[in-house]
């Protein structure tokens, strides 16, 4: 007859499950900090891109004005210069939006990966907790042993201790016997 789950196993299992829950909280906070940091970087990057784009557009405007106010001959084609300016500004703004979308896409990948990692860890924690639930369970062997020791009027803890002592003694005897054999050769 077995003696149920040893107390040391139950303690380790319980500590392991608690550690995983605690670590899950740490991961959550850590990932939240990374998301906050990445978001701030995106905001700064977008701001800089907008700033640069405004400067580019200002330079394009200055170039257009210079072309329009150019003294002839031939007289400046104002319509063509303005169309060119409008097209250049549109292209510049579109490029800036593409760059900002690329950054947003890359940071979204980071968030997705973190969510994936968090979900995996939550599954691992749940599995560990389920395993712990089984380990902590009062099993049939425990019931039988507790009842028997109760009938005999013996403390269960004392029986467990006696079993451990017997195991140690048996190991010592085995070792001594091995040494004796080794010495007689």
């Amino acid at each position, binding site marked *: 007859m077995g003696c149920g789950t040893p107390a040391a196993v139950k303690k380790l299992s319980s500590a392991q499950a608690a550690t995983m829950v605690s670590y899950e909280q740490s991961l959550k906070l850590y990932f939240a900090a990374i998301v906050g940091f990445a978001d701030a*970087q995106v905001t700064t*990057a977008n701001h*800089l*891109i907008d700033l*640069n*784009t405004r*400067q*580019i557009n200002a*330079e*394009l405007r*200055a*170039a257009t004005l*210079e072309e329009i106010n150019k003294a002839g001959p031939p007289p400046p084609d104002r319509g063509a210069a303005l169309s060119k300016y409008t097209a250049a500004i549109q292209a510049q703004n579109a*490029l*800036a939006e593409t*760059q900002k979308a*690329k*950054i947003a896409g*890359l*940071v979204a*990948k*980071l968030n*997705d*990966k973190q969510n*994936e*990692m968090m*979900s*995996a860890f939550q*599954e*691992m924690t*749940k*599995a560990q907790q*389920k*395993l712990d*639930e*089984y380990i902590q*369970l*009062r*099993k*049939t062997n*425990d*019931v*039988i042993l507790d*009842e028997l020791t*109760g*009938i005999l*009027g013996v403390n269960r803890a004392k029986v467990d201790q006696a079993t451990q002592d017997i195991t140690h003694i048996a190991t010592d005897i085995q070792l001594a016997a091995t040494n004796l054999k080794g010495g007689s050769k």
Partner: protein
Amino acid sequence: MTTQEIFDTLQTTLDKLDDAGIDDSSKRNLHILVLQLQNELITESFNSLKDIDSVTVADTSQLPVLAAGVQTAIDDEKARTALVEKLIATAKVGLKAAGIPIP
């Protein structure tokens, strides 16, 4: 030559034109180029995240199935324990009726 090095070279050239008091369309074009390159550098600085989706996360898809199996084992064990407790209680009643004292 890296993009950053190209940017630095262009910026130095632009600064030299500024110092020389040159303000013509060539300088303007160079300034536009520097600004466009700067935007490209800003965008590139996020490129380290490009391959993050290829990072493998531990496959946990089997865990819920296996946990359900453990739950069944828990339920079975609880039922078995309840049965044993019932048997022992019945045996105690029988022994008591037979006059055998049970603590």
